[in-house]
């Protein structure tokens, strides 16, 4: 259940709008936290645990919405953003979407647009969260490997046979077999195919969203 554990952040400098949006999102059963400025949000929420999304006004004083998006991206924070604006134009929309926004809505925004957009953003967040957890897990397992084991792993996932690996590393095939068993054990996999898939995830950087 995404809704139960997820948080929706609202950032809008207009107090009345902020309160109304917070209320509307809360009426759909989400947990909502609201902020009056981008800076306030950055200061209060440097780390976000769990599944979350951000409903963000573009026209903010101090730091505007698009700048906040850039800062969050620079911090490598995968927080799906739904932009809402009173005077959006095409270039602004394109810029926001290219930088990874999940939606770009015009004010006044109807619940039939906003709530599905939030559901979608939270789904994205949840997926990103689970892949991040998985990745963290793999990194954790990889950290347990010795340098030699890592070399063996790299050659194995390239599809080399034990014999070839032994030849490459200049050691006996029997030794490689021992290494291979240890790698399989430490990486908590049961087949070579599984090992290759896990290793693949580590090597390919995960794109946000």
């Amino acid at each position, binding site marked *: 259940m995404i809704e139960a554990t997820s948080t929706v952040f609202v950032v809008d400098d207009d107090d009345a709008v902020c*309160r109304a949006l917070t209320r509307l999102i809360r009426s759909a059963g989400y947990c909502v936290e609201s902020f009056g400025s981008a800076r306030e949000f950055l200061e209060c929420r440097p780390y976000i645990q769990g599944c979350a999304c951000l409903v963000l006004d573009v026209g903010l004083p101090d730091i505007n919405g698009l700048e906040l998006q850039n800062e969050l991206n620079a911090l490598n924070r995968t927080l799906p953003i739904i932009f809402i604006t009173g005077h959006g134009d095409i270039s602004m929309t394109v810029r926001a979407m290219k930088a990874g926004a999940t939606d770009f809505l015009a004010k006044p*925004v109807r619940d039939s647009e906003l709530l599905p957009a939030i559901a979608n953003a939270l789904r994205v967040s949840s997926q990103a969260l689970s892949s991040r957890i998985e990745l963290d897990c793999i990194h954790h397992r990889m950290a347990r490997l010795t340098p030699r084991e890592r070399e063996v792993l790299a050659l194995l996932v390239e599809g080399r046979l034990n014999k070839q690996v032994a030849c490459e590393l200049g050691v006996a095939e029997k030794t490689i077999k021992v290494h291979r068993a240890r790698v399989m054990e430490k990486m908590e996999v049961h087949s070579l195919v599984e090992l290759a898939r896990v290793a693949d995830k580590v090597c390919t950087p995960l794109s946000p969203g």
Partner: protein
Amino acid sequence: MTSFSAVIASVLVALLILFQIRRTRMPGSAVGSPADTELLRQRYNNYAFAVSDEAAGMERTNEAFREQTDFRRSAGFRPPRLSGRHILPTPPAMFSRGRFRRASFENEPHPCHVKSSVELPDSGRQSRHDERFGATLDLLPLAILAANPQGQILFANAAAEKLFGYSREELSGVAINELVPALQLNACVADSAHADLPLAGREWDGHRDLVAKRRDGTEFPAEVTINPVSWENEACTLTIVIDRTERYELLRNRQQLAHLTRVSTLGELAGSLAHELNQPLTAILSNAQAAQRFLATEPVDLAEVREILHDLVEDNHRASEVIRKIRALVKKGELEAVPLSIASVIRDVALLVHSDAIVRGIRVRVAVTPELPPVHGDKVQLQQVVLNLLLNAFDALESCSALNREVAIEVTPEGGDLIRVAVRDGGTGLAGNTFDKLFLPFFTSKRDGLGLGLSISRSIVEMHGGRIWAQNNEDRGAVFYFTLPTGARAERSFPRGQP
């Protein structure tokens, strides 16, 4: 225009004063300089007027008055102080029982040497006096009406005939209210009853802007000055009517120009204003839909719904306020002089440009000294000045880094009865050679500017009795100041009600 009328009124007053001058037994009195005498002689065709000895008797009864009279005597026949507004620094001009007669210029070098009134038989003298006085008044280019306490016209000069379209005979005996309906002679007569009070104690200065009516029924704005005079010991009035159509037209044109620039400024702001309206609409929609959702769930959270309804009312009020402010600025209204808090004027303008500032990435800081006395003026026009200065400041910040994009509005008291508003930007500042041209019409440094904003701002500020100027900041950018009078001074400086 006003100074012209002041001069004319002064001349008239000089004539009135002449009625009281000089008794023959005062040797060496009533002597003007030869140049003055010559001037008067040419101008008034050798007419001068003298008071009879009876008037001198009256004077003797007033001890306080005597000092002034003596002073006037020693100063020659010109009174020490003449002004169009304060007709007489002394008791009202006296026709001295209506007797005035030819002065003996032939007696030079004492041109105003006056012969005793007993020298001529009384009956013929009276009519000749009236005739000559009338002839003198006819020389003046101002419409002059003399009326009795009942408001009936006793005399009208040629300019009055021309202005109102009636002949002199037709005007005689007509109620003065036929010509100037709103005129209240009573106020003036009552005033003249207290004429012996020192001038400072009298508030009424005899000057009104009223509507006058011609014979053909057309109305025109007129500046009316009422002078209490004494005629055969009866309090009468001498009413001077000046046609103010041209001045009114000028003011009207200026107002129309101000209105046009206001509307065009608002046109430029249209996007931001739409956003300003969009915000409460967004809040209303979200609040209403939230309420629907809360009502659909059991049990209904009534406290929440109540809070939402409260917010809905607030949001609605806010939206209508935005519309009201826009309409007020677009409205083509007459000037309205009311006591105003300058802080509220600035607050309203700041609200209108709020979105524009955000879009341009500009911070607006407002610092108003608390408990400032109110200014006296037209809210819309003062808003126009602030709006214009604020948008100019925004434009000046166009090429600035985000860090310097700040406009500060400061309101501080200045001296005893002035407040000063400063609009400060951190832009590029003003070029040295532009300072003297800034407030001239059609001078602009903007690519698509009309060059009317500052010139209109200046005329508005000056109309309110204030001053506007600009200077560069020491570090960067420029600051525009304007002052406005407060308290009693403010009320005096604003133009009187327009017809």
